[in-house]
């Protein structure tokens, strides 16, 4: 008889339980609250996220496998869980105003955001293909619905349908790869799998599995050539959801990627490094060059987010402890600047203005100096200008690549960030060097102001004082996997 599950296992998934409970409370409160009081749901959601965050505290330095190796509770998971919760909270903050303007009902919306977060947390903790897959699906299904949440909007509906169809397709590819991995090793546990695969580098079926999983994960992180969905979906989905999708879903997929490849397939590192090496270069380059011509800001940020997936892959390619550290650092840093940029777009959304066209930013520094300054900061940070956090992140990524001997990767990364500045600065040019347009004044609600303040503060502080983040990220990276990552292969 297989061994049962113990009480201690439930203790270790306390944060997930709290979040689930919170999600259910939101769902019930939605029914119980009178229609005009439903705005309070955002508070319930925020409290749920806060409580989950607080319940992570006991596990600050835990490192265990629970439920017979289905889930790991370690610092790596913790780092990502904090990232997801913060990103979700910021998303909720910027959704308040957006839902009001769009006239959408908040109950199911917040419930789905919490469920998506739950899925991400499971993904980050999963060290078993079963858990990872279930987490992935929970997140993905929530996002399919969220992307189409603004029902009157054709763009939103279209985004949802596209995302769903392509998501299902890519999932098929991913599952094929996973089933091959299971079939070859006879286990779904990644760590056991790693020991079984030792010495199997030449096995063609394993190579096939690696390629298929790379493609499936590549879809989730929007790496070229699996990226086509991203611009359409990002542009069509409700802006806060786009923000959450481009940050949370991407970070969770990177967590999954690191778990699968670093923990489960260290034997194949020669192959997946090469694959990610190529993907990284192509993704950066295509993302940046395509972003140059965009006039819609959400679409531009979609391509920019594609390009950023390319940068983050640099850390994965390096594969060293430092590379993984850089990946974690960059994902966190990227979250803040990306969320901040989207928050500014939400701020510009008014009854009469959609706010995501470049021309909507004309002369913003006159109309709303703080928002313009915040956007300036996010753009510079995305472009990697010191002393912002984005610079720090890129610095870590590129130096990790150099450290591991991938000089050309670093050079291409630098070249790409030079290109990327072109379109980021175009936004700055519009805000600071163009005549103001006529239209109602964009006013920040308290929630949006808090969102922007958090993002600005994080972008500046992590750039000026990155030490703490670095130490945390390094400690987290070191708990990844039982298999030591040795020096990089060239």
């Amino acid at each position, binding site marked *: *008889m*297989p*061994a*049962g*599950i113990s009480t201690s*296992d439930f203790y270790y*998934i306390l944060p997930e339980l709290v979040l*689930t409970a919170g*999600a259910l409370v939101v*769902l019930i409160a939605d029914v119980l609250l009178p229609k005009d009081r439903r705005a309070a749901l955002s508070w319930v959601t925020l409290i749920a996220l806060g409580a989950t965050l607080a319940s992570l505290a006991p596990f600050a330095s835990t490192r265990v496998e629970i*439920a*017979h190796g*289905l*889930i790991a509770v370690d610092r790596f998971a913790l780092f990502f869980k904090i990232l997801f919760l913060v990103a979700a909270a910021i998303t909720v903050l910027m959704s308040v105003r957006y839902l009001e303007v769009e*006239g*959408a*009902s908040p109950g*199911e919306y917040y*419930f*789905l955001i919490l*469920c998506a977060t*739950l*899925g991400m947390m*499971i993904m980050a903790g999963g060290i078993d293909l*079963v*858990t990872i897959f*279930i*987490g992935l*699906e*929970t997140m993905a*299904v*929530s996002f*399919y*619905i969220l992307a*189409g*949440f603004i*029902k009157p909007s054709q763009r939103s509906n279209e985004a949802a349908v596209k995302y769903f169809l392509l998501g299902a397709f890519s999932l098929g590819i991913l599952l094929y790869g996973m089933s091959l991995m299971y079939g*070859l*090793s*006879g*286990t779904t546990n990644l760590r056991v799998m790693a*020991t*079984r695969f030792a*010495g*199997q580098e*030449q*096995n*063609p*079926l*394993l*190579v*096939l599995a690696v390629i298929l999983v790379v493609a499936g994960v590549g879809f989730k992180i929007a790496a070229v050539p699996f990226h086509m969905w991203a611009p359409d979906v990002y542009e069509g989905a409700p802006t806060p959801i786009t923000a959450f999708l481009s940050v949370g879903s991407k970070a969770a997929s990177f967590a999954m990627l690191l778990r699968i490849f670093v923990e489960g397939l260290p034997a194949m590192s020669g192959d997946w490094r090469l694959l990610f090496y190529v993907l990284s270069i192509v993704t950066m380059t295509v993302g940046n060059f395509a972003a140059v011509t965009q006039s819609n800001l959400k679409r531009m940020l979609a391509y920019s987010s594609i390009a950023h997936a390319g940068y983050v892959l640099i850390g994965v390619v390096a594969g060293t402890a430092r590379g993984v550290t850089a990946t974690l650092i960059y994902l966190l840093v990227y979250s803040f600047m990306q969320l901040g940029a989207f928050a500014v777009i939400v701020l510009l959304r008014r009854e009469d203005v959609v706010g995501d066209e470049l021309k909507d930013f004309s002369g913003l520094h006159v109309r709303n100096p703080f928002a313009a300054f915040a956007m300036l900061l996010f753009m510079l940070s995305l472009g990697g200008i010191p002393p912002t956090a984005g610079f720090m992140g890129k610095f870590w990524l590129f130096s990790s690549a150099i450290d591991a001997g991938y000089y050309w990767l670093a050079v291409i990364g630098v070249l790409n960030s030079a290109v990327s500045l072109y379109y980021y600065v175009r936004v700055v040019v519009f805000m600071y060097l163009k005549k103001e347009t006529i239209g109602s004044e964009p006013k920040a609600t308290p929630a949006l102001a808090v969102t922007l303040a958090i993002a600005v503060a994080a972008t500046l502080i992590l750039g000026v004082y990155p030490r703490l983040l670095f130490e945390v990220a390094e400690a987290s990276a070191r708990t990844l996997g039982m298999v030591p990552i040795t020096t990089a292969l060239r």
Partner: protein
Amino acid sequence: MAQAIAFYFIAACILGFAVLVVTTRDTVHSVLFLVLDFLFVAALYVLLGAQFLAAIQVLVYAGGIVVLYLFVVMLVNLKRPPEAHEDPHRRTKLGFGLAAAVLLELGAIAVYGSVNPAAPMPATPAIPVSGNTEQVGWLLYTSYLIPFEIASMLLLVAMIGAIVLAKREL
């Protein structure tokens, strides 16, 4: 040997019906082919000794979901010809080309694999043949309890999603 023949026969049927599902012009026929497809998948489960799964497959997919499909198709699409088939952008050639390429590559891998056999895997512990309901239940409610519970959340999400999409007014 007999098992191998059975496997290939069932697999060929699954593939064949899948192709028919997407190529048939009549939507109702398409759904009916889907039922057949699901039945053969169930047969595959039986072949693998997973009778419980096979039963569930028949009950849930062939019995429940596809019947629902049929209702929807008959209610909604009664008069309209299936548009997709007149779609000029179908890229049939591209589709066939890609499918052929995948097939070719998989074949190449199979050939390569049989020519250069890989180093033998360390012995895998034999998976207990758990064809009966009791064992599946044990696994689900003990070792895999947590994913099982998460799956319930997943279903809840799907349900809420269906409501969101179906609700006329938000």
